[in-house]
């Protein structure tokens, strides 16, 4: 799964030549061989490296504060979501929903690589949410819909139909 997502991320970043990845260990941690130096291991590490390679360092944040926030959400993705026991997933969604209440993107007002990486990670969860649940996690769903329609992000994943904003649904009659 991580490998397909890295390939989608490469396309999103506009990297022309695809990299070759392998995985290691039981958890299938992605590994990127490099010509000039030791291999890079770990999804967050490789994703950060790809953004630099694509000369898009702004996707890692433009200030030290933003860079720390981006790193935090990358870590959240690989520790809290990838390792999340089934019974805890609702808590994670609730927390994310609360966090996104007043935000357009995870790191504030501009897209960072944490957005596609979190989107890839929760896609399979959001697909299975019932209508009422999508409504309960409305900020998260709004963010999700925004990211899946962001140019170049979606690639290997199917679009998920989310609810229209309440403001629009009330205009239907």
């Amino acid at each position, binding site marked *: 799964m991580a490998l397909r997502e890295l390939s989608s991320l490469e396309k999103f970043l506009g990297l022309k030549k695809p990299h070759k990845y392998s995985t290691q260990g*039981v*958890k299938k*941690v992605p590994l990127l061989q490099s010509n000039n130096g*030791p291999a*890079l*291991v*770990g*999804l*967050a*590490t490789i994703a*950060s*490296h790809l953004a*630099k390679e694509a000369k898009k360092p702004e996707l890692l944040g433009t200030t*030290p*504060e933003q*860079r*720390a*926030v981006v*790193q*935090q959400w990358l*870590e*959240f993705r*690989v*520790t809290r979501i*990838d*390792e999340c026991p089934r019974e805890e997933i609702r*808590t994670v969604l*609730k*927390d994310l929903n*609360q*966090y996104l*209440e007043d935000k357009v993107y995870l790191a*504030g007002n501009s897209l960072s690589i944490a957005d596609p990486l979190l989107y890839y990670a929760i896609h399979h969860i959001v697909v299975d949410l019932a209508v009422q649940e999508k409504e309960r996690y409305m900020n998260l769903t709004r963010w999700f819909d925004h990211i899946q329609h962001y140019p170049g992000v979606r690639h290997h994943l199917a679009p998920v139909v989310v609810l229209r904003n309440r403001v629009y649904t009330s205009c239907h009659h």
Partner: protein
Amino acid sequence: MKLFVSEGNPHCIKVLAVLELTGVKCDIENVNHEEKVVPFLSRPVLPVLLLPSGQHLFSSNAICQYFFEIGGKAPADASTQWLEWEATELQPILGHALQMLVLQGKSAEAAKALEDPMNFLEQNLSKRTSSFLTSDTVAVEDIVLWAALFPLYLEPSLRPAELTSVFTWFERVGALPACQSAAQRVLQGRGQAALKGFLQKQPVITLRRDTPPCN
């Protein structure tokens, strides 16, 4: 900018050590383990850094990276990779080992759980040519890993003699005054017993089996 920490919380050692080492100016507030500092998180988490923008950093490694960066050192790919390894591979095992050791007194089980990550660290450290993990000056990954291991390394039986490279590196980092005062501040000279209150409030950590799941 304000850093929230609590006594007896092992994750606070790394951020306090990095704060002192980098000389970054920041207020520190001691709070209770159960204090909900980050408004959007259901479960209380510490340490937390309240940034000048009003955002909260609740990942201790992100806080350490931030202090290093505003102190003048941007992280390299190699640093990021060690921090990711610490968060994804080492922390779950350390959490489990600390519960075994401090709450249940099972040091042999703690030692068993630690074998794989410690051998991995030993392999990497024995191959390096620098004084620290990735360079000749102490960097964020050294403090983060040292602080993570520190509470367990207080127990002599968890320091296998054959891991010589780990031991030399561990002593070198631990000799820094910033590390010593951070450990003192969190453990209050009470050793691992100081962590009891914190560990009792954590969910029980069970480790994933090392066999691949069957289909």
